[in-house]
């Protein structure tokens, strides 16, 4: 904490940002920070600055030369390894705001017309981050409840959720929040959308339903309905039978009377943009 000024709420994240860049966070801190980082320019900057300082520290190590054999091994491995994407389709994920830079590597990374900006193959690191964020929430809730039994059953549930989320292919991830609190995470594949709810109120499945909406400009399109049976983390899959579900850049969730999706949402309870 600074001695010069009153500590602010964000100070904690400044500290976590440094620990994150140093790969020195405990898992629970890592989960908290992984949730916080997307969209926080200040933390993005702190991570960047820490990486620069770390790189400088690397310059102050005894000089050392790896063996010639390593160079040969690497060349052989590169010769046998294909790149994950054809180069022309490469799109750099940019969850952090781009600093104003010159030209750069952005030029050759133009998205092809059939591939919208936000739709791209899910990098494993991102999946891991999303899963960490989701699981972080779940475990957090249970730890608060102090129940070992709950923890075990939650871990079992979580591994199912994780397996579903980690199914290969392209997907878009959008955390949906209600007043700044993430209550659901949408993982949109082409033909289905997984909704991980966490903290949405349990609805009366006899007289109401949740509806997932994809936003086309300002026009919401109903993608499917689902129920929330428990306030803890849960996975619901909606929209089977449709395609192009990962082409929306914004998703929302509304709670509706009756069991059908209306033409327009009555009341949005969570909204969020695709971050990946």
């Amino acid at each position: 904490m600074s001695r010069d000024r009153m500590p602010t709420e964000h100070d904690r994240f400044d500290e976590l940002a440094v620990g994150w860049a140093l790969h020195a966070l405990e898992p629970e801190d890592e989960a908290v920070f992984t949730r916080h980082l997307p969209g926080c320019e200040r933390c993005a900057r702190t991570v960047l600055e820490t990486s620069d300082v770390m790189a400088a520290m690397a310059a102050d190590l005894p000089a050392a030369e790896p063996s010639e054999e390593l160079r040969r091994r690497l060349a052989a491995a590169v010769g046998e390894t294909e790149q994950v994407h054809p180069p022309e389709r490469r799109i750099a994920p940019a969850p952090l705001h781009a600093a104003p830079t010159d030209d750069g590597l952005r030029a050759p990374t133009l998205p092809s017309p059939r591939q919208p900006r936000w739709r791209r193959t899910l990098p494993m690191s991102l999946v891991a981050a999303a899963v960490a964020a989701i699981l972080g929430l779940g475990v957090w809730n249970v730890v608060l409840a102090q129940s070992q039994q709950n923890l075990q059953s939650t871990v079992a549930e979580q591994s199912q959720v994780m397996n579903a989320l980690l199914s290969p292919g392209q997907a878009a991830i959008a955390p949906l929040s209600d007043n700044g609190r993430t209550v659901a995470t949408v993982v949109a594949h082409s033909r289905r959308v997984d909704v991980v709810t966490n903290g949405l109120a349990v609805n009366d499945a006899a007289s109401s339903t949740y509806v997932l909406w994809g936003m086309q400009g300002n026009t919401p399109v109903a993608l499917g309905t689902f129920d929330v049976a428990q306030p803890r983390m849960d996975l619901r899959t909606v929209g089977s039978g449709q395609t192009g579900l990962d082409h929306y850049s914004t998703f929302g969730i509304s709670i509706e009377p009756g069991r059908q999706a209306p033409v327009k949402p009555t009341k949005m309870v969570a909204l969020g943009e695709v971050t990946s």
Partner: protein
Amino acid sequence: MGAVSRPARPPQSGSEDDDLVRRIRAGDRGAVDDLYLRFRRPAFALARRILADDALAEDVLQDVFLSVWRDPGAYDRARGSFASWLLAVVHHKAVDAVRREESQRRRTALAQEDMELSAPVAARDVDEEAWSRVVAEQVRSALGALSAPQREALTLAYYGGYTQREVAALTDTPLGTVKTRMLAGMRRMKEALGGATAGGALDAAIEGPAR
């Protein structure tokens, strides 16, 4: 010693990195070799410092450079210079490896060494070039600008690969204090290094295209 053998490298070497990344993205396998030749020394120095084992350090290097080839899009220019990013990846993988490989006993023994090494070192065998001496000097004096506990916290995490909680245990300090020290230490380092961070300091250890 005599005249400095060559002038300070211009601060534009980041564009060489960008060119290499561009070539790798275009599917040029030879660019990986160039990238390797350019970064092998600082990458290896860092990995073996963390792992205290040359063979494991070489495995980490192969893993890192191969992963850059496989998915060059993992580097996003918006996240800073390529050099900083690459060394952060080396650091990350080396720390993962050390956590996998090393017995607790050995780690604890090394911790003592880490703490001793955290003191600024007066003379190390960095006699590659006058330039790299100058830069290492800058980094060393920046480390010297930290308070001893700040230096200890940062070096244990960075060179030692310890988590914040491990650093707290090793230094017998509350976890919250360790977190605060790392942040304050990082900020002071950044100030002390000024423009000499990655863009400058690291260049000392990176090979130019001529070699």
